[in-house]
């Protein structure tokens, strides 16, 4: 497979996953480019042990998780350095539903359903978010998700249930 063919077939897939994992187009594009470049470098070594799409998902999710770890590390030192001045800034937008939030319909009117769901997704931890994105958006099987994340199928099943339960709670609060 040529590089161009690979990019033509997988760039859209990688960007969509990156968009749901990061929550914004700018970070998604940066992550997608990073993951695609890594995939292109590693492509000659791809042995076909798994589906190519699974391999690409794996590279994308691992690249994103590496970034999250790096951001957390930087955030830790930022907290140490500037915490005394109350200058904490999270790179990742955090959705904080309030008890007196407007009803879901009203919220949806303002921001749209996609934005609300995306904000709820960002409340999940990294593995749970990846599981939800791969299952609900990319419609991957439990086995394939486990392969991408290095988890057992049973673990994927239980974590997906917990992630859904948490999303339900978050969305219920928004619509309450």
């Amino acid at each position, binding site marked *: 497979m040529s590089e161009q063919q690979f*990019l033509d077939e997988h*760039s*859209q897939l990688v*960007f*969509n996953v990156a*968009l*749901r994992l990061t929550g914004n*187009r700018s970070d998604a*594009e940066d992550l*997608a*480019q990073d993951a*695609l*470049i890594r995939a*292109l470098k590693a492509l000659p070594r791809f042995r076909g042990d798994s589906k190519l799409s699974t391999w690409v998902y794996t590279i994308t999710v691992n690249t994103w998780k590496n970034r999250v770890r790096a951001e957390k590390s930087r955030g830790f030192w930022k907290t140490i350095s500037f915490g005394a001045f109350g200058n904490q800034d999270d790179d990742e937008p955090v959705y904080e539903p309030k008890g007196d939030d407007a009803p879901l319909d009203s919220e949806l009117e303002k921001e749209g*359903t*996609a934005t609300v*769901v*995306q904000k709820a*997704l960002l409340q999940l931890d990294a593995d749970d978010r990846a599981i*939800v994105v791969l*299952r*609900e*958006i990319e419609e991957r*099987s*439990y086995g394939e998700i486990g392969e991408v994340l290095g988890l057992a199928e049973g673990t994927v*099943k*239980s974590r*997906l*249930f917990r992630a*859904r*339960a948490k*999303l*339900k709670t978050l*969305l219920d609060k928004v619509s309450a």
Partner: protein
Amino acid sequence: MNDSTREKLSAYLDGALSDSERRSIEVEISRSEEMRLELEALRAVSKTVKSLPKEQLPAGFMARLQARRAREDAAPAREYFILPPAYRPLAFALSTAVVALVVWDKTRAPEELIVPRAGWDSEKVAVKSAAEAPPSIDVSGQLSAMDSRDKGLADLSSGSAERAAANEITAANAKKEDAAGAKAGAPSTFGKHISAPGKPLGVQEDEPVPAEGGFARRAAPSGPAAAAPAASSPAPVLGEGGGGAYLARSEEERSAINERLYQGFEEEKKRMGIAKIMDKDAEEDRLSGGGREFMALQATPEAAQVGRARGSAAAVRGMAKAKGGAPVLKALTLKSAEALSAAWSAAGLPGEPPAVSFPDQMAVFLAGPSGCGITDVQVRKKFIVVLYKDAGFDDPSARVRALAASPKPVVVKPAE
């Protein structure tokens, strides 16, 4: 409803249950309103997430991707931490060489180096003849293990090491005195003030004691090279008159004489660079497995000149004795016929030394017990190796080898 049931509902929603599990959960859902509501809630969440739109790639995504690839290819990430990869083989080779050098230096067998000190070379031996040799140039004394048996010193082994060495020195001085006395027509005293076992040092009962002791005689040196050490040496007087006079002295007087003699001996040792003469028996025990023993020269201010023993900062192996007590072997580099003649005479060898074409050549002279001889001389890069055997040579000329003149130090090694 517990979490296990809810988890099954979530998997049921995804069609991830086995047929039996699916039939079982469907029966439960049909019977339980709560489970049905829970299933609907999960389905709603799933539907909401699925409703997120799939967005198209941003405009210019591929162009920016290719540009980024080009940038990263042009400036590859620095993978090295300290050294760039090109230098790693060189660094590895250098570090390996250093390690190998250290290991080699630590593990190689110590080479037995016996290098004559400066005072033993031809500069100090270079006198016109043996008879004219200034008494301060104590060639025979420095060849301390000269064949004592040839000189009637066979009984030295029964005495202490100090006494033995003192007798050697005394004998050597007496020998020089002989040479000088022969020229002046005086009777020889050589060998007449050698102690017998158990007798006072340097005196025999039945022989007259010389008016001056060996050390006192050296108080008026003629050679400038020896003026300082000789002048600094005390001049113990053994006694006036003959041995009878000595014996007629009281015990205290004899002790005082012996004490002065001992002090003179200590001074002589210092002058020669001898810090300690090891106890012979102890040394034999220590070296019982080594096949050789060493006596005499320890580290002193002059030790560096006397020689060096690789691997040991202290021991200077100046007087190696063959196993069994045979005296020491040394080699001198002599650069004049006079020096060779003096050494030849000092060693008590009969006849004349072999002819050597000085100054184009120098003579390597082996000092040691009778019967010793040079088997081979190897001129190496940094020194000259003299291989010897300490017995088996009837011809004393085997002690001398003529070589092209060289400033290299001489190393004495037993022939295999």
